[in-house]
């Protein structure tokens, strides 16, 4: 069973991000402090434009904070690294590669080739249940299948931290519930630290051990709510008293921020 071990995996320390725009400076993140523990599943909710994705990009090493630091395993993050995998909302599959080619992409960059790479790719393609589509191109897959490939691709590179930026946001409700359960299942078997961004409060509670609520711009952490519902969780978890209480509470908090954005 995955869960908190107490060791801090990712430490976010006083991170501030300012963008220069035509109308002057925009403060996207203002003083973010957050500890993500090893094998922990942290979800982030907040109104759009609150800097959730910026925070994820900073942890991924795709953007640099204006001030403050982020470290992973005690080492300061200065760029991308294969110990931190990312799943994007827009799938970002390489359209010229087959399912297998996409999943092998990271492996080849790490110098793993031939039979060995193929074996690893097959394992993760099977994990996301796409073994029948191994030689298909992305254009031949549905949205849900594409996102499964993206997840398999991230897993195959064997990161210890998985960063997900609204990965199920573009999918229909049915596919989304299916992928949520699959994700919980793989998180359990693969032992990863997960940082998962969503705008869906229910999704955040269903998946996370900890829900981080972010405030409207400038993005700050408004509150962190622990979700003590035991795993394995599934769709029935949504009906439990505890779930509904958390949902009402967090939704109320997020709604206040939506109102703040409107003003």
């Amino acid at each position, binding site marked *: 069973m995955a869960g908190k071990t107490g060791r801090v995996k990712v430490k976010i320390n006083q991170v501030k991000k300012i963008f220069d725009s035509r109308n002057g400076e925009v403060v996207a993140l203002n003083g973010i402090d957050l500890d993500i523990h090893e094998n922990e599943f942290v979800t982030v909710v907040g109104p759009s434009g609150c800097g959730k994705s910026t925070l994820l990009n900073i942890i*991924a090493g795709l953007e640099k904070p204006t001030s403050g630091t982020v470290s992973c395993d005690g080492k300061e993050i200065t760029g991308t690294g294969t110990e931190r995998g990312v799943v994007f909302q827009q799938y970002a599959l*390489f*359209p*010229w590669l087959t399912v297998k080619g996409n999943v092998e992409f990271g492996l080849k960059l790490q110098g793993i080739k031939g039979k060995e790479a193929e074996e690893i790719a097959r394992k993760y393609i099977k994990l996301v249940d796409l073994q029948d589509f191994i030689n298909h191109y992305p*254009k031949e897959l549905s949205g849900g299948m594409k996102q499964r490939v993206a997840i398999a691709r991230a897993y195959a590179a064997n990161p210890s931290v998985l960063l997900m930026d609204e990965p199920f946001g573009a999918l229909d409700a049915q596919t989304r519930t299916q992928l949520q359960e699959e994700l919980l299942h793989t998180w359990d078997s693969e032992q990863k630290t997960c940082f998962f961004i969503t705008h869906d409060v229910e999704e955040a509670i269903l998946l996370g051990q900890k829900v981080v609520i972010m405030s409207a711009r400038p993005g700050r952490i408004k509150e962190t709510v622990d979700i003590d519902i035991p795993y394995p969780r599934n769709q029935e978890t949504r009906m439990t008293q505890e779930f509904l209480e958390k949902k009402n509470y967090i939704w109320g908090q997020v709604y206040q921020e939506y109102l703040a954005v409107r003003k």
Partner: protein
Amino acid sequence: MEAHTLVDGTAKKKKVKRNLAERIPNGGWLAISLIAALLFWTILSLIPSTSRSFPNVFLVVESIGTMMQRGVFWKDIGSSLISVTSGFSIGFILSLPVAIVMAWYKPIRFIIEPWIQFIRNIPPLAYVPLVVISAGVGRTPQIIVITIATFLVMSITIYQGIKNIDPTLIKAARVLGAKDRDIFMRVIAPASLPFIITAIRLGTAVGLTSLIAAESTGAQAGLGMRIRALSNTFESSPMLLYIIIIGIIGLIFERLVKLLERRLTGWQEKRDV
């Protein structure tokens, strides 16, 4: 109720139309189209005011023999093909690095792009005399003119393609451990392939359309040169023949590019026409 029947009516009409289009196979349509064109041509050859420009099909076919007898038929085709393919090839080889550099380094883009756009709009025929002054007559100026014309259109097309590559793909590669070199070889190169093929298609077309201009540089042979020469003697049959041959060569080029496209970029989500 009325709206309902209206919708039904159009639906039915569409259905009938589709059936007619589907009942005749593609090859059949091609034949119909050819027959229609021949008919139109024949009408033009019968109308007194157009008959001098459009001699009938038999006269035009006959002129193949005339041109062969004069010993220029294959020489003209060969010469034009050599000029177009070499001009195109040099233009292509030059356009690739220029497009990449423009996409990669902003300062270079800002300096070069406006001039490419500026010269692109000038018909090659306009700068032919300038080319001849420096390069003399013969093969060289022909190749230079075609190189310039094809280079301009291809470098812009490829550059715009590279610029429009989805940045998330580059991010995805980076987080999987790709360095700049990997990004270039494994993302930029394959992602720009469709645009390179589009550029090739446009380049071959421009190469052919600038042929007449290129061969007005005192060429010894060539389809464009011959058309001009024949106009001095009002020999409209071989002229029309040569014009049709240029069209056929264009068609063959396009077919070859299509073949290339299908082989190399079959993975594309949308295939443009």
